[in-house]
Every structure is written in structure tokens, then in C-alpha cells.
């Protein structure tokens, strides 16, 4: 398992995964940043968060999506970004499960480009989110030397101090 985890080829497999996840999150944050009120309504529709936290969530979350999307795309602080994306996916999946269990007939609120009629929550949405969670987890656990700025900065970093001879 350790040998598999340290396989250098993961960086190349993780690259398209990162680009895909980045595209999803950049697309998702766009309408939320443009129209925080609409997103706040979407958050409120889930009926999970207390009212006092709904707007705070609507204000902050899109920027985390934007930052992590960009970071994943350019390979800067890739693993913290993947950790946050995985965390968000866990939260979204839980929220979806609760909404589905409550029988709420509502829009996912994930992408504004899709109208509410075109993007209702369903078990398919849940599976989709689980796949995205798995992708984020793959980047987090296996992309140890990500291609991108992280690797570039690692190369240009200060030389490792010489080890004293025993």
C-alpha cells in the first residue's frame, strides 16, 4: 500500500482530476459570487443551518470555492485545497442526504446556469457528489508531489542543509 501511495505516476493521473474538479468549483462559485442573495435562499431552502448562519455561509463559501478551484488548477497548495474541497463535498453530501430524507422537492443550488427545474435534487445528485468527493480524496491522499506551482516552488526552494557525518 505504501509503495502504491508513493508511486510518482499519481501526479499525472491526478492532473486531469484536479483540472476537472477546479472547473466544477469555478463554475459553481460564479453565480454565488454574483448573486449572494439567491445563493442564501438556496442555502435556506435546505432548512439545515440556523437562520443566523445562512447569509454568512452564502458570503464566505463561494470565495472558498473560488480559491480552492484556482489553487487546484495551478497546483498551488494543492493538498490543502483538496482537503477543503473534500470537506465541502462531505458537507454538501450530508446536506443533500438530509434534504432527500426530508422529501424536500427543491433545486440543488449547485449551479445557477441550470434553472431550478433542470437541477432538482435526487439520489443521482448524491452519487455525483460522492464521485467528486472520491476525486478530491484521491488528490489529497495520492498526489504528493503535484504538477504545478507546488513542484516548481519545491525545486526553487532553499537547498537542504547538509547532513553532518555521523
Amino acid at each position, binding site marked *: 500500500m505504501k509503495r502504491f501511495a508513493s508511486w510518482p505516476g499519481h501526479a499525472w493521473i491526478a492532473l486531469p482530476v484536479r483540472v476537472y474538479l477546479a472547473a466544477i468549483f469555478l463554475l459553481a462559485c460564479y453565480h454565488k459570487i454574483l448573486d449572494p442573495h439567491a445563493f442564501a*435562499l438556496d442555502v435556506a*431552502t435546505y432548512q439545515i443551518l440556523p437562520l443566523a448562519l445562512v447569509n454568512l455561509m452564502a*458570503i464566505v463559501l463561494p470565495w472558498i470555492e473560488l480559491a480552492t478551484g484556482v489553487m487546484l488548477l495551478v497546483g498551488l497548495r494543492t493538498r*490543502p485545497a483538496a482537503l*477543503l474541497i473534500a470537506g465541502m463535498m462531505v458537507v454538501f453530501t450530508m446536506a443533500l442526504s438530509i434534504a432527500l430524507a426530508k422529501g*424536500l422537492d427543491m*433545486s440543488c443550488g449547485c449551479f445557477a446556469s441550470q434553472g431550478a427545474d433542470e437541477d432538482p435534487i435526487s439520489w443521482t445528485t448524491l452519487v455525483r457528489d460522492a464521485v467528486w468527493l472520491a476525486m478530491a480524496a484521491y488528490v489529497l491522499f495520492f498526489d504528493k508531489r503535484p504538477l504545478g506551482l507546488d513542484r516548481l516552488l519545491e525545486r526553487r526552494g532553499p537547498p537542504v542543509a547538509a547532513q553532518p557525518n555521523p
Partner: protein
Amino acid sequence: MPMKLLENPTVKATVRDAVLIVVGCAAFGLAFNGLRPSGGIPVVQREEYDLLVPCPDISAEVDPLEPTDPRLGAERTLVIDAREAEAFAAWHHASARNAVYDFLDPLPEETVREIARSGAAMVAVYGDGADPDTGRELAKEIASKGIRNVYFVRGGAPALRERSTAR
């Protein structure tokens, strides 16, 4: 176990960076919201949001809406035309969708689901403006399905049309 995991320098650095990203984004998001030309949204919402989620509260009473009410043109208002398809084709409110009201047949379940899913904050229904008004009857039926914030336009399509012609 989680504490032991955090002793690993890589894990520690990853979590620390993730926390810094969240803090940075929160600060930036709050500042951006405050500096929005439109004023942004309040950080703490005090008034309940009007949500269109079907609920067991069944109330068939609906309030009227004047044809001049500016909420009719609002983005999150779902306008429904209850008249026959021909009348709808001849003239209808700019953002209206047609859901023909039949005094004998119940409202299709799919129409109710579509309204609930629409993400609208308010539903405004107008009909032929006659007595009884199909708009008012449809609005009552929609409200009885548990959809909140349903109104009917007083005077129906003739009043709306007259208002649009006057403008």
C-alpha cells in the same frame, strides 16, 4: 487518533494551510460583501426567508395583488397565466408561464412540483378576471397544495394588459 495524525508534519501543514485559506476567504468575502455597490446582503439574516417548499400547512385563502404591483416584475416572482392556451398565445405577461385552470379537473401534480422547484420567492397568478376569476381559483388551488406566498392579480389579464398598454 486524530490528534496523533496531526503530529505528522505534512498533515499538520496541510490542515494549517487549509485553515488559513478559510480565514483568508472569510475575510475577503466579508469585505467584498460590505463593499458591493448594491450594499451586499446582511451578514446575519434576521427575517425568515420566504421559501417555496411544500409544507403540510394547507390554506386555500390567497391575497390579491394589484396589477401595478412592482413585485410582478421581480426576478424571483413566478407569474402564472391561468387562461386557455389561445388566450395566452394572443397576449400574456412578459414573464408568465401558462398553466390552464380547469374548474373540473384538479391541478396536475407535475405543475405543483414545477412551481415548488422553481426557486421563486412568490407566485402571482392571473386569469380571465371574470367572476369567478380563473386566476384566483388557480391561486387558491396552488396554495391548498402547501405552496406559500401565492397571490392572484386583481382584475386578471384584462387589468394587466390595460396597464401595459397605458405604459
